[in-house]
């Protein structure tokens, strides 16, 4: 009998621990999925240096700059490996990053334009645009600081 009740108590404790573990695991998974989703679908913002005289852009104007149709500002790209690049091009230009590259290949190999220079990271883009008012880039909203100014936010 004793053995049995002890066994029940132990069993209940194991169940409680297991439940806590499951709850913890579920919470962790949920938090991880939220984090992952936020990374995959991070809000992308188009930025210039804080001292730039440009104050805002429409989606079409941003698209024109990054597809070489408007040349007042010089665009900077995220690295090829960045998921932000895919996000930006699909939200702003309606093209995938690969389609945008194909589009630029057509222009650059026929002397009709120079593709955006590739920066190394969002930090690199912030440094470059804050030191040159002619440059424009895009970064995740969470990376925005006082060195840059948001011109357009792609939801």
């Amino acid at each position: 009998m004793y053995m049995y009740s002890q066994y029940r108590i132990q069993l209940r404790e194991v169940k409680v621990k297991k439940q806590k573990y499951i709850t913890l695991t579920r919470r962790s998974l949920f938090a991880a999925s939220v984090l992952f989703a936020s990374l995959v679908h991070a809000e992308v913002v188009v930025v210039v240096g804080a001292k730039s005289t440009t104050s805002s852009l429409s989606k079409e104007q941003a698209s024109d700059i990054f597809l070489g149709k408007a040349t007042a500002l010089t665009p900077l790209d995220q690295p090829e490996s960045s998921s932000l690049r895919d996000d930006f091009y699909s939200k702003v230009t309606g093209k995938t990053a690969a389609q945008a590259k194909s589009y630029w290949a057509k222009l650059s190999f026929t002397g009709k334009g120079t593709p955006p220079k590739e920066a190394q990271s969002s930090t690199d883009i912030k440094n470059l645009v804050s030191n040159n008012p002619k440059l424009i880039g895009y970064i995740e909203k969470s990376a925005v600081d006082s060195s840059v100014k948001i011109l357009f936010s792609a939801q």
Partner: protein
Amino acid sequence: MTRFIGEHVKISTVLRAMVLAGMLPIATNSFAAEIGGVEFSGSGFMTLAVGQMLGGTNRNVMDYNCPCFISDYAQAAVYDNRSGLQWQPDSKLGVQGTALFAERSFSVTAQAVSRGTANGGADLEWLYGSYKVNEQFTIQAGRKRLPMFYYSDTQDIGVALPWIHLPPGPYGWEAVNYNGINVAYQSQFKEWTTSANMLAGSESNSNSGYQKIYYGRQSVSNIQWDNIFGGNLTLSNDWLETRVVYIQSNTQEYNSSGGWNSTTQAYDIAPAVIYPRASQQIYGLSVNSDYNNWLLRTEFLTIIHPGLGYRDYAHLIGIGYHYGKWQPMITGSEYIGRMITDGLIPPATPTPENMQQTISLTVRYDLTTSSDLKIQYDSQTDISSPAYQATGYDYGNSQLVTLAYDVVF
């Protein structure tokens, strides 16, 4: 047999060079440097393609053992009935360098392309100076592509094309470059972009690839296009692009080596005039769209040769769909060469007619933003008149499958 062994040795050499050259950009990417106020930049593109004939009309045409699929007339790129996979016709490696001078208003651009069809030999396709007068006007002088078609400028850059090879009917021509001057105009009005070019110049090719298809692999033919004059106008917005083109020139072609004689199965010694000097007028229309995930490509071309008594008609229509990184596409194209009076007295006899129809199925997969894999199936049906089929120039039907890797760097 010796010839084939020789070609295979050269192909492997070319491929090694191409693969090495392809690996280099993966490691180094494009480059840019500034020296003495001049900004130098370099970039490139490569297509490694392999094809296999699946069937078609078994016959010898010139010294080609067919069935044959002509993937690029200008380069004499022909898949034929030899056993094994064929790398030569569509594989190519291009490098481009640009020097941008102070104030960024003047630049010099050069582009060289090494081709499998030339056993790795390189040709200078572009070499021109460009002066940007203002935001709207740019003046260019030197060697450039002749803008007969929507994809003329990018015909070698696989990443910028939805196909492995351009539909050969519409895109099969003797001249693809010219030496001369071009004035380019570009402006933006609301959502519409307008771009226009006016060009003048000439082209001379002393060893035409195009005429090797009709005079034999080893033949040497000369083509001259002079007094080239014309222009194109493109209107585009986010989802629609329309382009019209008009180019006129004088043409003259002769064979200097003697052509293949099907009766003697050897090259004739006597050279021959292919076409005497005559004028031509080229009219082209293209309407293209990228709407949501759909892709539409169309081209319509007519060439009138008033002094030669024939006209060329060529057209294509292609429909594709973007599905993530995948892009399946179906394309139909047709070429018609038709005898026609066009002011000749007495009128030309309205035969023979040279006609081919091609259906192409292509699937593209974007590996990275700079590279893709494509697989393409082409089926060409010869519907030429019996009179043309009897000329000995008729290549008949063919089915081809090709696989390609494209990259820009």
